[in-house]
């Protein structure tokens, strides 16, 4: 005993010293950590700024300024007021001629008898003003929607030019060249090549391939000309080869600017490029197309997925780690969770379709359930049994869920649940047993130990796993396509029972459309936005891990 008392005062000083040096080492390490953290933040900020610049350029569609097919191209001469009596041919690369239903109906000729503005309501409740040209054709009066893609060919008033008469109004398409002289068909000539595959403008660079015969229409009549089938053009998007085939039209722009002014006076100015990929709805016109409904759909589906999968996944993880007895049932569940994490996502789409979208068909009008209980089911897209608790609109419940946001979120929840459970169990298991003992030793109940120590300590790990799982879900396309998500949604959802689309489906849809505007520019813009969202989600996960992870 006495030794203790006497040695204590002398050891006091070294004790303080020892503690001091220990602390210094620690703070040196902390400083290094801090510097690394600052560098990480700076790098992240730099990356985000670069990404933001890239995105702004993409989303304001700066890249669309050079888009072919956006020109309103006029050959020949339109002389001011007299246009209503003119014979014109209208060619529309996107088949927006009212009443035309077939693939080959790409152009029509006739006399302009008037213009018309129609107001239509979109499903989102917006109104849309559509400009039409009323044309007296051999098929009767036809309404033609006018927009920037429309190409109008016009000849001198009074006459009915041969060029227009020989125009393939009935779909018996020829390769046709209008309004040029023979010598125009040479290297260096500016040319716009029209449908069927969209249209593209550029300067002729070379001719290749087999020689075919094309019809040249001019004031002097029609003549045949031999030309090689593959024409390489120098366009604003680099070199493109155009294959001349049945139905291809070629226009040689003489003086488009002068004529365009007159057209603007007549049909209103071109819509300025105000929309962005982020703020526009899908459209058949690339300039107006965007993925607003896809972004909103993705955000809501992911939000619902997070809402469902967090309590389910974390609850399951806590149960399995803390409460479940080791036994054959627990083992079976463990094996299944691990297997489910590897099941192809398309399988979950089938599951979602059967379970959530259709409820095994239990609410079909012909189902025994409906017949037995006389349930008032509605038919149609938003069919099934709809009932309203207490008459409050947002408490409306649809059975089955149908192809709704809710069904999408539920399907995605199934998809990521195994991953969330595995990540959460991992995080819970990483809490040292000594912490558990410490809490129990202080008289904590089991639930207090879990809720006050284990869960808060595991939380950053759980969140990291959760976000990584969600960022996987946000890129998933297959299950939602199987489940029946739509590709063309031009309105914002008003409730979780609405139909929806998501970003990857929108991108997939664009890639399938003809025309570089969709295939290249819009799809690329969509992919960049999708990547940006995914990368920022991953960045948040990394931030959480670095910021809140406990170093024992």
């Amino acid at each position, binding site marked *: *005993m006495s*030794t*203790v008392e006497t*040695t*204590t005062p002398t*050891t006091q000083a*070294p*004790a303080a010293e*020892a*503690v001091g040096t*220990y*602390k210094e080492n*620690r703070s040196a390490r902390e400083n290094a950590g801090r510097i690394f953290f600052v560098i990480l933040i700076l790098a992240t900020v730099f990356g985000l700024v670069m990404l933001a610049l890239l995105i702004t350029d993409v989303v304001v569609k700066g890249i669309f300024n050079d888009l072919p097919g956006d020109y309103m191209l006029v050959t020949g001469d339109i002389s001011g007021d007299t246009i209503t009596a003119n014979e014109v041919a209208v060619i529309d690369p996107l088949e927006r001629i009212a009443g035309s239903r077939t693939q080959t109906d790409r152009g029509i000729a006739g006399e302009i008898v008037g213009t018309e503005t129609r107001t239509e309501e979109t499903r989102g409740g917006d109104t849309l003003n559509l400009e039409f040209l009323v044309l007296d054709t051999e098929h009767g009066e036809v309404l033609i929607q006018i927009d920037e893609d429309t190409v109008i060919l016009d000849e001198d008033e009074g006459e009915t030019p041969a060029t227009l008469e020989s125009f393939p109004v009935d779909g018996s398409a020829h390769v046709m060249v209008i309004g040029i002289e023979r010598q125009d068909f040479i290297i260096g000539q500016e040319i716009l090549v029209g449908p069927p595959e969209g249209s593209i403008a550029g300067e002729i660079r070379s001719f290749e391939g087999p020689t075919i015969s094309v019809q040249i229409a001019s004031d002097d009549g029609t003549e045949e000309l031999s030309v090689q089938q593959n024409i390489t053009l120098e366009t604003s998007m680099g070199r493109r080869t155009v294959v001349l085939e049945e139905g291809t039209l070629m226009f040689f722009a003489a003086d488009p600017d002068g004529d365009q002014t007159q057209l603007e006076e007549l049909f209103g100015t071109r819509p300025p490029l105000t929309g962005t990929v982020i703020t526009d709805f899908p459209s058949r016109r690339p300039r107006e197309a965007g993925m607003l409904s896809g972004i909103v759909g993705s955000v809501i589906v992911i939000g619902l997925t997070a809402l469902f999968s967090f309590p389910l996944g974390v609850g399951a993880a806590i149960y399995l780690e803390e409460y479940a007895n*080791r036994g054959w049932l627990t083992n079976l569940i463990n094996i299944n969770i691990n297997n489910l994490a590897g099941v192809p996502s398309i399988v979950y789409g089938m599951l979602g379709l059967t379970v959530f979208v259709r409820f095994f068909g239990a609410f079909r009008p012909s189902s025994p359930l409906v017949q037995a209980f006389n349930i008032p089911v509605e038919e149609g897209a938003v069919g099934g049994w709809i009932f309203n608790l207490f008459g409050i609109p947002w408490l409306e419940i649809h059975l089955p869920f149908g192809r709704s946001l809710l069904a999408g979120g539920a399907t995605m929840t199934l998809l990521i649940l195994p991953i969330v459970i595995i990540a959460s169990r991992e995080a819970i298991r990483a809490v*040292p047993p*000594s*912490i*558990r*003992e*410490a*809490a*129990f*030793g*202080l*008289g*904590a*109940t089991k639930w*207090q130990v879990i809720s*006050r*120590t284990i869960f808060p*300590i595991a939380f950053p790990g759980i969140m990291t796993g959760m976000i990584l799982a969600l960022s996987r879900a946000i890129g998933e396309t297959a299950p939602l396509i199987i489940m029946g998500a739509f590709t063309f949604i031009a309105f914002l959802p008003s409730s979780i029972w609405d139909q929806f689309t998501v970003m990857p489906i929108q991108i997939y849809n664009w890639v399938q459309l003809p025309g570089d505007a969709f295939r290249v520019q819009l799809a690329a813009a969509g992919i960049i936005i999708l990547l940006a969202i995914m990368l920022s989600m991953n960045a948040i996960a990394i931030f959480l891990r670095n910021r809140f992870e*406990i*170093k*024992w």
Partner: protein
Amino acid sequence: MTTNGSTDYVFETDGLSVYYDGKLAVDNINLQVKRNHITALIGPSGCGKSTVLRSFNRMNDLIPGASVEGKIIYDGRNIYDDSTDPVEVRRRIGMVFQKPNPFPKTIYENVAFGPRINGYQGNMDELVERCLRQAALWDEVKDKLKENGLALSGGQQQRLCIARALATQPDVLLMDEPASALDPIATLRIEELMHELKEDYTIVIVTHNMQQAARVSDYTTFMSIDRSNPDARIGHVVEFGPTEQIFTNPQKKETEDYVSGRFG
């Protein structure tokens, strides 16, 4: 060893045996722990010291497959009675572990954890300060109560764990080799602290360090593995008595061999 009125004793064990997965680990332990004294458990490693200590606050309940036979009378009641709530037992019998295990929370929240979960109504700041003072840590941490407990040195962490255990206002402190992970200076501080805490608490300490037992304890229990059946490695109590007697005048040959360092 005299048996005074039973109120002098905080714990009295009666035929305590502990099994792990049906295998006997310690057999038929009978000992008393005197109020406001320090009782040390010494013995070779693996003889069941921790096992006995952990059965005093039912920490063995947390080990799957562990089972306890016999009685431990605490406060006139058997803590292994069906009617006894193990949570209540652990609240009144605090524990300090071999390796410092502060929560990854602030120093303040570490100490306040126990009172909070037990619904403490009084002034938390005062309680935290009092416990940190009792654990002789206040002066070192009073300016950084909001810092993480893990940022302290090992010795400070262990004193924080003692303060944390004191905050639930227990009767008894169980300490399982509380200084074995610490350097000699930190060890001395913990030993001094135990002397101070003896005034208000009853302490049971497990140690494999005989000098430590000799320095700090009033009573010593020497445990060993039953030599008649060495393969089974069953722990039992060889000798129990005042520390002075165990170290200077042991009654058993085995004890003498051990305390004089001649143990196999």
